[in-house]
């Protein structure tokens, strides 16, 4: 098995996410033992944000890190476990609501590929960038 970041790199559809993780200085932490649950937005999810949104965040690593940490839980949780609870505390601090189990929806994003098990956690691929609030 590979780590979360290696798995994402091999998938090929997380280029923006990986660049953002590197810009925010989170690569080392996410390559650590964890375990983590990562809700990983695909490239199209970042591209759907209005112009300038990603650039402003990339220019400001602490602010970018905050948004990225909202996509991560401490602990490895598969879909079956996540749907048993309405809210999960993100590493950012704000809760991530689980809105539907079928189809599996995390906040206002739909999970398009769940339960990708990695060395240091679980990845759920989502179709939108989720934001605290």
């Amino acid at each position, binding site marked *: 098995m590979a780590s979360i970041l290696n798995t994402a790199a091999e998938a090929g559809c997380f280029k923006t996410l990986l660049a953002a993780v590197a810009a925010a200085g989170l690569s080392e932490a996410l390559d650590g033992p964890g375990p983590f649950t990562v809700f990983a937005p695909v490239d199209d999810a970042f591209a759907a944000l209005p112009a300038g949104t990603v650039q402003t965040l990339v220019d400001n690593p602490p602010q970018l890190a905050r948004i990225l940490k909202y996509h991560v839980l401490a602990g490895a949780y598969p879909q079956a476990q996540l749907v048993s609870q309405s809210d999960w505390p993100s590493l950012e601090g704000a809760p991530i609501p689980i809105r539907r189990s079928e189809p599996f929806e995390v906040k206002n994003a739909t999970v398009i590929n769940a339960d990708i098990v990695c060395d240091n956690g679980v990845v759920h691929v989502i179709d939108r960038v989720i934001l*605290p609030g």
Partner: protein
Amino acid sequence: MIPPSTHKYADVIHRLEAGGSMLPDTPENLEQIIGIYKAYAVPMDFYWRDLLYIAERVFLNPLPAFKYFISKQYMDLANSYSGDNSKLRIWRGGEKAHPELVAFMKRGETISMPKILHHLWHDRINMEFAEACMQAMFWHQDMGGRFNDYLESKAYLANADRAIKAYFKGNPLMLLLYKLFPEMFIEQVRQLSYYSNLGLFWEVMAPVFFEMSDLYDEGGINSVPEAMDFLVNGIFAVAGRPIYHHVYMGNECIEIIPKSEGFTWLYEAALPYVEAVFYRTSPFRGTKSYNAQANQVPADQADFHYGILYADVYPVGSAGIPPTLLMQDMLHFLPAYLEATYQNHGRGDEDKLIQLGITFQRSMYNVTSAVIQALRCALLYPLTDPDLEHLLANRRFFEAQMDRFLRPEARLSDIQQQNYR
């Protein structure tokens, strides 16, 4: 399709669901709101510069008589979001203070004379309005974001302590006072952090409004929803802008709130600002007075409803009242087409402040619409989502937002009519 809403403001909700604004899409509404955005942007270009000047340079000056006498450095400060050197260029104009602002500061309404005379004659930009907005944010506090919580943290107290001791270095009297009344000094620093917060917020809004005015003049914005969408995109574009508080003593910089705390323009400035200033503020003493003992002022701060979205522009229209101070500031920078509109309605010059106050109210309903649509976009679903449950979630969100305008003071019904002037 989901069934029609049965809310009192169902028409407005259906308009929002179709991608529109709370303000009806008419050519006159568009002309009015763009004209007033421009008139607002010029004094705002002063507000943000002076707010940062006070937060970063005047700081704890015990006699800040000259805090509105902004230094040349701050008048020439490059806006982070306009001009050729900005990382994310929103306003195509120059980087220094707007030329109309510079011209007004020289002449005012009277003649060119020394700055001190303009100040004493009150022939100047009314910074008191900006400070009233800052105080509304400072006082209401619990409006989301983490800024306020941080002001109580150990890290903040340590940074503020360092800044206070550095600022009063060599001043035994002030250091003694600090030792005797530490909380008084810390509370002043907290307020100064809100000066910085609001300054950084408005630094973004000024070029956004200038750009909208320029685009409208060129024919680039042709409807109220287009104006709203421009604002929605602007909100997203700068959402991640850091909110911080740095203090400079000579060349030394003390970071009271470092950028590394991760505070953002959207969560720690824009959303609290909209809540504190558009919705809540405080009961201004105009020609109308409030009796708190008779429960005319809510006991719960969250129920305060004295912002521009609820204001009866006429009774608060008295000298020295913060909304009137802003109206007076905007009066100096009205585009010609808005001047002509006011001359053709009401009592012309005689009630121009009231007319432009109501125009401002219309324009802020449009800004609030942009905030509502941006939140819907960020937290909920696209308006064209094929999933009915998602559309119903959007509907519940819009209805909850409109619930805030059910109280009789709300002006949402009024702005639906063009003859509300």
